[in-house]
């Protein structure tokens, strides 16, 4: 019974979390390997449970009820196709991250601040996916939030990290509150919190709509949906890199799971305006996230913003699925939802890969600012090529996996003319355009990230003396890279595996992917469109091989005469190289005035004045300025006004109680 094994493994993770502080106190040297090794093994068991439940059919699925938690509810757990799919995403990421951390954790200065919370964080994420009642779900969710908060605060000496932790805690509490309200509405007056009971209710349409809004606020804030993403680029980079990978690659997917579980599974029939809301937010997040990412100088923050973009893409797919589901287009809805979940899985792969690369750069050189890096391809070749692979995947270039899922989402977008609602017929192509824009900008963003970090000459002594990472770290990245390639070249089996999920969510499935010819996949039917990652891969290999041969034959043997100041590098100072800011400048010119209110101030000294000319660029975060700053101001103002209440006399307090009582009685008297 996989579910029993899964729950036992979760208990094991919790046990590791309890034992970890003792280990840290006793034997410093071994604690890291033991904790991460145990996490690796347990995550592998959980991964097997998920795989068997998803691939093995209903014999390996199931649910259990344990007599823990609230006495009249108990704790329900379920392993159905949806939770199995996300269990795989969570635990594959967790497994690889644990493996990576065996190497990475050796660099940790205070392992006592990371080791106990890491297995607890894994346990929390697994429990969220496995729970089948609202109470257990919320407890696990909060457990996940708090343990990840503790991990964000691991390096709390940096005031920026403390601020990140504070913002994260605020947003996490807000999100949980929203989820609490959503489940409260779903449970109805009888208060039966088991998912099976909630599913069987007949939900009132406007209540379901309210639940959707609350889920967008609650799960959306955890997933990093704009404009609730503000905590994400602060908190994800603040954690140790393997935790950043988990938070960005996996925890956001847990939030996506929560959204899917409630909106597709529990909240009843969708209305078409749901799709409008979800599509708009998803498209907005995708573009806003990648625009921010293009401009970042901090490598890990860049990756965090790119997470916002990818979550936006996932939500575009989910919005499409809602649009098709509400119009009873099961095949199209199945395509959209499968593409979404597949993209979530792909993103967990390449985002982990990229965060691991950033972690290697960080441990190798101690630097996160890409303007101070450069030339790392010579010092850390394996990291460089693996990072390049991750960049290709996330930029949605064939034959890697990012392309497959984004192509499938675009295929779903192409089905939108069949929708009856005009609003959707206009909105869906618009969001498709946004998706294409986001994909193009993401490519620019990662060309910049890779080029500035790994190519050219080192821009600082730290980059000059960088060290290649340990074998554990590199091998973890190889595993991810291999899977990125496999999922890109042979996507068919992955899509087939997801068909029970889409069957349970939207009542339809994508066509069974035939193995032949050339491992192509077909989203709708063979006559419409198909894609063969294998053929593309084969042609890319052949073309590259041919190009290399040709260049080698004609260029390598030819005698070259080069002037001594060639290639624009007459000055040996690395500061003359192309910088990250200059790379991003054209994009900033185009989108800056709109998205960031960019302003450039030039100070030209008068002729004869010896002061240097200055060019000052100011970018503003509009989301922060127009949503969060006024909110903060209002809260502060109210707190300031209410502060008087702290300093009243006893009689005034009694009078307040008295006045409140009388007021309520008057209300009762007038209303009754």
């Amino acid at each position, binding site marked *: 019974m996989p579910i029993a094994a899964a729950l036992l493994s979760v208990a094991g993770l919790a046990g590791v979390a309890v034992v970890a502080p003792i280990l840290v106190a006793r034997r410093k040297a071994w604690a890291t390997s033991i904790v991460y090794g145990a996490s690796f093994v347990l995550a592998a068991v959980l991964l097997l449970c998920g795989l068997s439940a998803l691939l093995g059919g209903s014999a390996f699925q199931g649910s259990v009820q344990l007599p823990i938690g609230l006495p009249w509810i108990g704790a329900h757990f379920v392993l159905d196709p949806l939770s199995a799919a996300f269990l795989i995403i969570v635990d594959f990421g967790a497994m690889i991250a644990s493996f990576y951390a065996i190497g990475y954790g050796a660099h940790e200065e205070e392992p006592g601040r990371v080791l106990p919370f890491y297995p607890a964080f894994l346990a929390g994420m697994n429990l969220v996916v496995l729970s089948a009642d609202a109470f257990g779900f919320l407890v696990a969710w909060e457990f996940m939030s708090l343990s990840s908060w503790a991990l964000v605060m691991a390096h709390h000496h940096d005031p920026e990290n403390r601020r990140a932790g504070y913002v994260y805690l605020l947003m996490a509490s807000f999100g949980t509150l929203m989820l609490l309200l959503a489940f409260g509405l779903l449970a109805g007056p009888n208060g039966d919190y088991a998912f099976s009971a909630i599913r069987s209710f007949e939900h009132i349409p406007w209540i379901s709509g309210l639940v959707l809004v609350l889920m967008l606020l609650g799960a959306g804030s955890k997933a990093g949906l704009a404009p609730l993403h503000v905590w994400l680029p602060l908190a994800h980079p603040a954690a140790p890199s393997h935790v950043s990978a988990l938070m960005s690659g996996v925890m956001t997917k847990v939030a996506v799971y929560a959204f899917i579980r409630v909106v597709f599974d529990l909240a009843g029939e969708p209305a078409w305006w749901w799709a409008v809301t979800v599509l708009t937010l998803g498209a907005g997040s995708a573009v806003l996230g990648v625009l921010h990412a293009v401009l970042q100088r901090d490598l890990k923050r860049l990756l965090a913003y790119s997470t916002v973009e990818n979550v936006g893409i996932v939500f575009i797919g989910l919005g499409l699925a809602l649009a098709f589901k509400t119009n009873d287009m099961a095949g199209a809805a199945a395509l959209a939802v499968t593409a979404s979940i597949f993209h979530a899985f792909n993103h967990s792969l390449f985002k982990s890969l990229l965060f691991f690369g950033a972690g290697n750069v960080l441990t190798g050189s101690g630097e996160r600012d890409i303007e101070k890096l450069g030339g790392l391809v010579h010092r850390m070749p394996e990291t460089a090529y693996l990072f390049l692979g991750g960049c290709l995947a996330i930029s949605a270039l064939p034959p890697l996996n990012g392309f497959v899922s984004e192509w499938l989402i675009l295929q779903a977008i192409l089905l939108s003319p069949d929708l009856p609602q005009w609003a959707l017929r206009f909105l869906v192509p618009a969001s498709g355009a946004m998706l294409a824009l986001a994909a193009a900008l993401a490519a620019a963003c990662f060309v910049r990230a890779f080029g500035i970090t790994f190519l050219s000459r080192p821009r600082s002594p730290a980059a000059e003396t960088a060290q290649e990472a340990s074998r554990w770290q590199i091998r973890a990245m190889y595993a991810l890279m291999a899977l990125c390639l496999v999922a890109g070249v042979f996507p068919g089996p992955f899509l087939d595996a997801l068909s029970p999920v889409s069957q349970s969510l939207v009542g339809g499935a994508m066509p069974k992917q035939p193995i032949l010819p050339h491992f192509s996949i077909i989203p709708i039917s063979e006559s419409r469109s198909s894609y063969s990652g294998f053929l593309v891969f084969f042609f890319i290999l052949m073309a590259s091989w041919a190009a290399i041969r040709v260049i080698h034959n004609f260029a390598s043997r030819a005698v070259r005469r080069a002037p001594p100041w060639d290639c624009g590098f007459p000055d040996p100072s690395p500061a003359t190289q192309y910088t990250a800011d200059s790379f991003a400048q054209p994009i900033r010119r185009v989108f800056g005035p709109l998205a960031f209110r960019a302003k450039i101030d030039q100070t030209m000294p008068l002729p004869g004045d010896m002061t240097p000319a200055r060019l000052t660029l100011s970018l503003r975060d509009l989301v922060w300025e127009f949503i969060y700053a006024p909110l903060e101001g209002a809260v502060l103002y109210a707190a300031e006004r209410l502060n008087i209440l*702290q*300093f009243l*006399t*006893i*009689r005034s307090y*009694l*009078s307040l*109680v*008295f006045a409140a*009582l*009388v007021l309520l*009685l*008057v209300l*009762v*008297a007038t209303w*009754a």
Partner: protein
Amino acid sequence: MERFSLDAAHLLAGGMVLVSFMMLYQNRILGLLNVFAAHAVVLSLSVAWQAYVQAAPHLFVTAAIALILKAIIIPVALHHMVLRLGVHRDIETVGGIGPTMLMGMGLVALSMVVMLPAAAEADPIAREDLALALSVILLGLLMMVTRQNAISQVVGFMSLENGLVLAATGARGMPLVVEISVAFSVLVAFIVIGVFLFRIRERFDTIDTQALDDFREGRE
């Protein structure tokens, strides 16, 4: 008989409201204690009448507790306390008597307006008892709010509790255990408050609660 029992119950409960009003305008402490004793006596009569009408013998125990504890022990103890504290000559002037009485009348009217429709289905004795009990509670609160002297505030609190007992006995079926435990908790509260009064007095040379605030930190 039905009619008579109803009228008598109303008379006694109304008497409590009346005595509450007497407490409101009593600005000498010893006089206030006497009126409070009278309040408790009326309460115990009312509870005893309820016991007789409802044929619920355990309510007699309640009445006895009210009589012994609230009409004798607590007033006598407070009396001693006042004499020992030497505040028996103090006269409180908080607000005017007139406005306070007017507010009290407003509160009684409010509780009638609230309770009579709210408890329309209850039997008449319970219904009007509830309304009058709510008046007593509100008047006790009003007294706590308008007084500065800690002892008067304690008396206000006790009369509020009398109102609660009245409400509880009017509604049938409150178990004796609850009644006894409430009575003892009041006694414990009384002891604690008494101890505090002496401590406050020892520290600040006054039991005027306004004076306590002058010693508080953190005032702007």
